[in-house]
């Protein structure tokens, strides 16, 4: 049982307000990911949970105990740092033993735990080495091992994979996921990489400028982003946005811009209608590249666009088309077998069920 609850959490650095009224409940055994661009306050929030930064106002509870004034050593948490923070003068085994020695565990128990953690991570043969003799991936494993041996209430991860090369990062991501399944310890993970957030998190917190934008399961964020920021941040390549005017034209709700005219489908039309005031309500239309395909005979002209191809990016599994539709730039991810070339003019069809509308002022989803 280790829930972490943040209540009205605020952090000021001098006069800069970096974390603003964060309310969050992290459930027991949950893998919670904080994601957002750099400077969004995610790392500061994590460091407050760790006890490395003082809380300006609000409460942090671990297992229903307010820990605002508890020093890091007494919070029973373990943290994995971006640069691993291995003690350079100690062997791998001593690195892992340090936390247990500080807590005065008996020697045989320390040995036992190190052995078990090393076996889980596959680093038994490295125990005698010094950190400088290890590769990046191995250091990462040792840093994980040092956290595991402690058997803490909560794991904190501060961008642990961002110093690894791309291939190793994918591999370690999978291992982290397996590890969490095996250990079932409440984990809080900070990253700026939305792919990591989507693949690792049971739930994901999207932050921006110190404010929580949305909390939800990965698919929820992907399918129903709460605002334009979340919509643009989650998903790769990013969602396309176009400024449109929505109006009621003979019972149909239509979104229009130069070179673009889309009839909104039932449910979205109903939601748009509640926001409409007068003939031309301005809105931002969003569609993900993967919800666009080259129009075929089955596609209704209501959801089609005339596009001119500007760049073709052949990725093998898909083709990314950078196209121009009227004033707007639209990226489409299409079937890799379609033959397209730069400057081709073609008709693209949108999946109408996957359209998103946002208020241009508040950026909130309709």
């Amino acid at each position, binding site marked *: 049982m280790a829930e972490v609850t943040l209540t009205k959490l605020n952090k000021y650095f001098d006069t800069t307000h970096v974390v603003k009224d964060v309310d969050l409940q992290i459930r027991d055994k949950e893998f919670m990911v904080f994601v957002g661009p750099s400077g969004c306050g995610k790392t500061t929030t994590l460091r407050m949970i760790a006890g*490395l930064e003082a809380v300006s106002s609000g409460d942090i509870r671990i297992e229903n105990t307010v820990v605002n004034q508890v*020093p890091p050593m007494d919070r029973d*948490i373990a943290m994995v740092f971006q640069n691993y923070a291995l*003690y350079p003068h100690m062997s791998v085994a001593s690195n892992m033993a*340090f936390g247990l020695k500080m807590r005065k565990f008996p020697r045989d128990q320390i040995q036992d735990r190190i052995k078990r953690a090393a076996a889980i991570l596959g680093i038994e043969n490295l125990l005698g080495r010094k950190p400088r003799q290890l590769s990046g991936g191995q250091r990462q494993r040792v840093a994980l091992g040092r956290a595991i041996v402690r058997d803490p209430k909560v794991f904190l991860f501060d961008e642990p994979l961002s110093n690894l090369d791309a291939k190793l990062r994918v591999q370690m991501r999978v291992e982290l996921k397996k590890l969490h399944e095996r250990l079932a310890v409440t984990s809080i993970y900070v990253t700026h990489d939305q792919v990591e957030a989507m693949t690792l998190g049971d739930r994901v917190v999207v932050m921006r400028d110190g404010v929580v934008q949305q909390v939800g399961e990965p698919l929820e964020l992907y399918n129903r982003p709460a605002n334009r920021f979340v919509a643009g941040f989650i998903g790769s390549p990013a969602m396309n946005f176009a400024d449109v005017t929505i109006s009621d034209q003979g019972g149909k709700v239509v979104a229009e811009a130069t070179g673009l005219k889309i009839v909104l489908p039932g449910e979205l039309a109903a939601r748009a209608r509640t926001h409409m005031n007068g003939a031309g309500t301005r809105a931002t239309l969003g569609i993900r590249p993967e919800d666009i395909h080259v129009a075929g005979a089955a596609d209704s002209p209501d959801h089609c666009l005339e596009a001119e191809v500007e760049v073709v990016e052949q990725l093998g599994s898909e083709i990314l088309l950078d196209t121009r539709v009227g004033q707007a730039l639209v990226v489409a991810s299409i079937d890799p077998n379609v033959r397209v070339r730069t400057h081709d003019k073609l008709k693209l069809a949108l999946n109408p069920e996957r359209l998103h509308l946002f208020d241009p002022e508040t950026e909130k989803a309709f």
Partner: protein
Amino acid sequence: MIEGAVWRKWVFYNIPLILFVFVLLFPFYWMIITSFRPDGELYRPWNAVNYQPFWTNKPTLEHFVYLFEETDFGQWMINTMFIAVTSTLISLFCGVLAGYALARLNFPFAGSLGTVIFVTYLVPQTLLFIPLAEIIRNFHLGDTPWSLILTYPTFLIPFCTWLMMGYFKAIPKELEECARIDGASRFKAMVYIIVPIAVPGILSAGIIAFTLSWNEFIYALVFLSSPEEKTVAVGVTSELIRGDVFFWGSLMAGALLGSVPVAIVYSFFVEHYVSGLTGSVKG
């Protein structure tokens, strides 16, 4: 690396280097030759037929014997060693703690305090000895080793503090934060993690502090008066120059023996020393 033409390497690299080494080592060579040269040869005029300034065919230990039998040289060595080691240890202890505090702890006026400490280092010893002499007299410490052990830190502590502060700042903060999450208090994190990592820096500070105290002249000259309390630097120059008579052979023998401990200390720690001054910590 491609070096270019051979002549270029000689003109810009080898010849300047040889000149530099020659200029640097010649005084030592002169010191060694003089200390082994018999008096007869030493005071031979330059226009004598058998004048031979750069070499001697009859090396002798008479100057060394004189040094140990007719002066308190052995006692001076012991005095200097005791004073240098003790004041270095005191300064290192204070410097490490102060450097850590200035580098890591957030307290009001930390920045200006660091500057003030540095400023005290800039006050010339040739002026500072006047008020210090007053203090030494009031505490009746004159003519005891403690007069130097307690005054050397006035310039050694600022020096050690600044060197250690720079070194501590170069150690990633995460190491300490990680230790504190791992269950160490701030003090334990310092003792078990930061100080062991800073050993090269501490050694460098220690070596330089030791050398500075070993070679210190003006305080030793002012605060010590009886021959048996003197340090090497003061003892040799005051006891072997009598009026206008220079006992060159013994003077040089004393200088040679006096520089041996420093040379040993340097050569012993040279690797750590260089990495302490130039290297940063690799994670």
